[in-house]
């Protein structure tokens, strides 16, 4: 899996590409923690190019959210593909995450 990093409207956008499984989730977790440790309190994770997610990957989203929320931060997810959406649905993530249809919407919700 590749992680693309960009800054738009003053916010960090992490774009995931490929498979987010037990193997790649470790890298993703490290990246997210590094971002949070670096002082980012509000950022977007763009899933438009993420084909696949397993529970190991889901874990990272939970970790990130748990770290940010108490400090008043927020992570917004956007552009979920159908297979990813299905898994998110199964585990009830739609009720605990801020998930939007597009990157622009996600950025707007932060601004």
């Amino acid at each position, binding site marked *: 899996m590749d992680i693309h990093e960009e800054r738009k409207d003053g916010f960090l956008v992490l774009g995931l590409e490929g*498979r987010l*499984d*037990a*193997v790649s989730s470790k890298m993703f977790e490290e990246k997210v923690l590094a971002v949070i440790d670096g002082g980012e309190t509000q950022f977007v994770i763009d899933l438009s190019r993420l084909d*696949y997610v*397993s*529970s*190991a990957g*889901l*874990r990272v989203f*939970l*970790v990130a*959210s*748990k770290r940010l*929320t108490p400090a008043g931060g927020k992570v917004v997810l956007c552009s979920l593909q159908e*297979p990813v959406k*299905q*898994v998110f649905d*199964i*585990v*009830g993530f739609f*009720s*605990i995450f801020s998930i939007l249809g597009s990157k622009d919407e996600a950025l707007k919700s932060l601004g």
Partner: protein
Amino acid sequence: MTRASLFTKTLVLIVVLFGIIASGTSILSGWNLYRNLTQEYQSKGVAIAKSIADSSVELLLNADVSTIQSVVDQFTEIEGVSYVIVFDGQGEAVTHTFVPTVPGDVLELQRRTRTQAVSGAAAINDLSIEGTGDFLDVALPILAGVAGYVHVGMDRSLIRSRIWSAVATQQELMFVIFLLSVLAAYTLVNRISQPLKQLAGHAGKLATQDFSEPATGPSDIDHLPQKSHDEVGKLAESFITMEIALRQSVRELKETTAAKERIESELKIARDIQMSMVPKTFPPFPNRPEFDLYATLIPAREVGGDFYDFFFIDDNHLCFAIGDVSGKGIPAALFMAVTRTLFRTTASKVSRPDSILSLLNLEMCQNNDTCMFVTVFCAVLDIRTGEVEYSNGGHNLPYLISHGETAPLKNTGGMALGFTESVTYRTEKIVLRTGDGLFLYTDGVTEAMDEEGNQFSEPCLAEFLHQANGSSATEIIRGAVDQVKNHSGGAPQSDDITALTLKYLLTAGETTSETIVVELKNNLSEIERLARIADDFGRRHRLNAETSHNVKVALDEILTNIISYAYDDAEEHIIVVRPSLDQGKLTVEVEDDGRPFNPLNVPEPDTKQLLEVRPIGGLGIHVVRKLIDELEYRRQNDKNILTMKLKVKEA
């Protein structure tokens, strides 16, 4: 022509001829006789008159009447002399032979002829005395009328009776000649008509004769040409020549017919041989329910240049093809046989359709002195996935009949085989969905003409195939052939009609004989490899994307768990995954030799929990439970065996 009518005609001719001759000769001879007799009577009368006159001169001058009377009486004895009368110089009748008196007519005549006779010559007059008859009166003056006159009457009735008797004799003779002529004509006509009758009888018998057999013996007219050298003989000769020529011609006809029958029978055998070269048993693979295939080949003549073929390259790949050799009849059939044989040989060496066509083309180009060529469409179907890879060598593009849509396949641009070795054949791919069909055909189908020369045409075929969507392969082929035949009506078939239909029937998740065992190491990187294997499996068995995805996610979760938590050591372990399909149900067994762990015992997480209180882990098993219909766990031989069952949805 019969003898009776021939003789009747001859008889009529003879009667007419004899009638003319008889009347002609009678008139002529009667007239001649009359003239001669009259002359004879005249001279006789003149002689008598002279004799009387000479002997009466003296007597008249002496008025010796009685002597004159005796002289006169002498002459009346002479045949033909009717009367004699002597007048004196005063015109008084001196003596006469009339009884009792001289008729007035005679006296009257005497008065008229007195002046006439002065010249001394005899005066001859016709005299008709009423009640007595017709006479030739010869008056002669005696001494130039001085002494008197003598009249001699010659009886004309005697002339008439002599003429009649002469004519009667002549007629009797003529009648005898007539009878003899009729007899001669009868004999002659008989002689002529007898051979004619024989010829007629012979000709009548000819009609019932068997000319295919040699003549049974000498015929009844063989002697005629020698016997008669006339027209009848010539006719008989013509008859004999004609009969010989007839026998000869019938014999030749019989030989020609026999030769034709022999060729026809050989052609029929050739047709049987040709037909046995294309597979004709349908269904061809009864134990392969994944597809339905039917084909037909109807040659325009006894043998044709079309062919079709299909066979398994391996357990999962069916090769099928259709071809059309240029031309028709025996040359095309021979070339077809060569092509079909080379095709099989080639397909046993290479298995891609483009390679088959390339190799086949090379073979066909060699020793192709007759410059014949063949168009071939060749395709290979992967039975497991419905994927068809095809290559075209100048042939009519088959139609894809797919869920209400009918269209020709995309061309691959190859040229007919046998022209040149420098042709590259390319392939295209399509994937048949369940129920999709391919209709392969030769131009004999679309170019079949009706009596006005209108072709059946591709739009008509496409329309028929569109309507036939949902029919079996057999129904499609038979329907198409019926359509073509209906179109043609009474017009003779102009080209071979060949068609092949393949319908793909494999439905998702059908039982497979395939046994797959995947062995994985206890390393997280193996999960991605497993995902690829799962994708491939899903494609081959036509599982829909959702099913494939669910299985992949579930396997990921299970495998991640095992690899991450099942082993207490750092050794390499093998995890076995066994997918199988049975009646629309996918079963995947995962077997590991890690520590005992029953995922079914893991409590359900509360997915309604707020973020703050939700545990980070424990979602994997939940995801598996949600995605998989049935989960079973057992511990067996120190191994964890987790069985996942999932109802398959069709692609």
